[in-house]
C-alpha cells in the first residue's frame, strides 16, 4: 500500500486541523502508524485517507489512485475501507451480530444468511462467540471494541483504519484489542493506525507518519523513526512518552 497527500487542508470552523499536509509512504507499507501529540491532526488525517472526510483542498492518493472530491463518489471509495474509532461507535439499539449483519446486507449486497455466516465467523475469531446476541451496553469496553473491529473487517476491506482504538480502554482491555490488531497485521491486512501506544506501534508498524499542528513533520520507515527521528518535535514526543515506561 502506498499513501500520499499533497497540500491537504481541512478546517473545522476557524480551527485548521490539516494545514497543507503533504507526505508519502514507501511503496509497500503494510501497517502505517500515525503518531503525534493530541490535536495534531492524526484523527483528521486518518479520516481523510479513508475517504470519510473530504478535504477543502489538496489531493489524497491511495495506491496511485486519487480519491474523488464529490460526496457520492467518496462514499463508494470509503465502502472499500473499514473504520474503527476511539469511542466504539457501535449502534446501541442493535446486537453485536446485527451491527455486523446490517451493513453487509444494506451496503455490500450480502444475503441475510451469508451475512450471518460471515459475522459469526468473525465474532468467533475475535473471541465473541458467546456474546453475539448482546447489545453494546451489555459488553465490556474491550468486547465492544473487538465487535467494532469485526464490523469493520466483515466486508473484507482494502484498508482497515483505526483511530486510537485503545484510548478509552483500561490496560487489560487494551491488551486484548492490541492482540487482535497484531494478528490482523501479521495476517497481511493493510492497516492505518492512529495511536499513542508507542511500543505497540514500534512492534507492528513498518511506516510512521508523525504529525504536529496539522503538518507532517516526519514520514519514514518505522525503524528509522524510532532509532533516529530527524525532527526535533518527534524526538521531544518520543522522549516524553518513554519517560515513564
Amino acid at each position: 500500500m502506498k499513501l500520499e497527500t499533497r497540500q491537504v487542508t481541512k478546517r473545522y470552523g476557524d480551527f485548521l486541523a490539516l494545514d497543507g499536509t503533504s507526505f508519502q509512504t514507501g511503496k509497500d507499507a503494510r501497517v502505517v502508524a500515525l503518531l503525534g501529540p493530541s490535536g495534531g491532526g492524526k484523527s483528521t488525517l486518518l479520516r481523510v485517507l479513508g475517504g470519510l472526510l473530504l478535504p477543502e483542498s489538496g489531493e489524497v492518493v491511495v495506491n496511485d489512485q486519487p480519491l474523488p472530491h464529490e460526496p457520492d463518489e467518496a462514499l463508494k471509495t470509503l465502502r472499500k475501507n473499514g473504520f474503527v474509532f476511539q469511542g466504539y461507535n457501535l449502534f446501541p439499539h442493535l446486537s453485536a451480530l446485527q451491527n455486523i449483519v446490517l451493513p453487509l446486507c444494506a451496503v455490500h449486497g450480502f444475503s441475510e444468511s451469508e451475512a450471518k455466516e460471515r459475522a459469526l465467523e468473525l465474532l468467533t475469531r475475535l473471541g465473541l462467540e458467546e456474546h453475539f446476541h448482546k447489545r453494546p451496553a451489555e459488553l465490556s469496553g474491550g468486547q465492544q471494541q473487538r465487535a467494532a473491529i469485526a464490523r469493520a473487517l466483515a466486508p473484507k476491506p482494502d484498508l482497515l483504519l483505526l483511530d486510537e482504538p485503545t484510548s478509552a480502554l483500561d490496560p487489560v482491555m487494551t491488551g486484548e484489542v492490541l492482540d487482535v490488531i497484531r494478528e490482523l497485521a501479521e495476517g497481511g491486512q493493510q492497516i492505518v493506525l492512529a495511536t499513542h501506544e508507542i511500543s505497540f506501534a514500534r512492534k507492528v508498524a513498518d511506516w510512521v507518519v508523525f504529525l504536529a499542528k496539522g503538518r507532517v513533520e516526519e514520514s519514514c520507515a518505522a525503524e528509522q523513526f524510532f532509532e533516529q527521528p530527524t525532527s526535533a518535535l518527534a524526538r521531544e514526543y518520543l522522549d516524553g512518552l518513554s519517560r515513564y515506561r
Partner: protein
Amino acid sequence: MNHPPTRRLLWSFALIAAVSLGLYITFAAVHYSWNWSSVWGYRLQFIWGWFTTLGISLGAMVVSIIVGFALMIGRRSTCMPLHLLSTGIVEVLRGSPLLVQLLLGYYIVATALHVGDPLVVGTVLLGCFEGAYLAEIFRGAVESIGASQREAARAVGFDTAQTYRYVIIPQAVRRALPGTTGQMVSLIKDSSLLSVIGIEELVQKVRIMNSSSYTALEGYLPLAVAYLVVTIPLSWYARKLERRFAYET
C-alpha cells in the same frame, strides 16, 4: 422501579381506597342533590358522543404524526425557503389558540376550499395543531442522536437515507415516545374544542344532556370516566412500547 408486584398491587388498592374516601367526604360536604335518573335516559347520546370523540382522535393522531414528521424534516432541511416555511408553520400553530384555528380554519379556509364536512375539517385542523408540537418532539429526538452515531453510520457505508432508516429513526423513536404519548393524551382532550364548529362530540353531548335534563353536574362525572377509559390504557400501552424499545446507551 422494580417493586414486587404484590406490594405494588396492595399499595394501589390502598391509595385508590384513600382517594375514594376523600372524594366521598368532599362530595358529601356539599349539599347537592344528584339526579341520576333523568341523566340515564341520555345514555345512548353519551355513547354516540364517546365514539365520535374516539373517531376524531384516532383520525387526528394519524394526521398529526404525518404533519409532525413532515414539519420536522422541513425544519431540518438545508433548503432555506423550506426551513423558513416549516419553522413559520410550527410557530403559528403552536403560538395561537386552537379555538381561533378551528373557527378561522372552518368558516374561512374550508369554506373557501368548498369543504363542508365539519368532521373532516375538524380532524385535519386538530391533527395539524398537535402535529406542530410533535414536530418539535421529533426534532429534539432526532437531534439528540449524536455526531458520533452519524459518523459511524457513514463509516460503515450508509448513505443519508440509510443513515436515517437504520440508525437515526430507530433510536429517535424511543426518545420521542414519552413526549409523543403526552401529546396524544392532550389531543384526545383537545378534541372537546371541536364543538365550536358544530361537532357533537362527547363534551358537547354532555352539555346538551345537562341542559335538556335540567341537571347541572351529573354528566361531568361519567365524562371524566369516559376520557380516562381511553387515556389510561393509551399511557399504559405507551409504557409497554417504551420497554420494548428499551436499551442502554
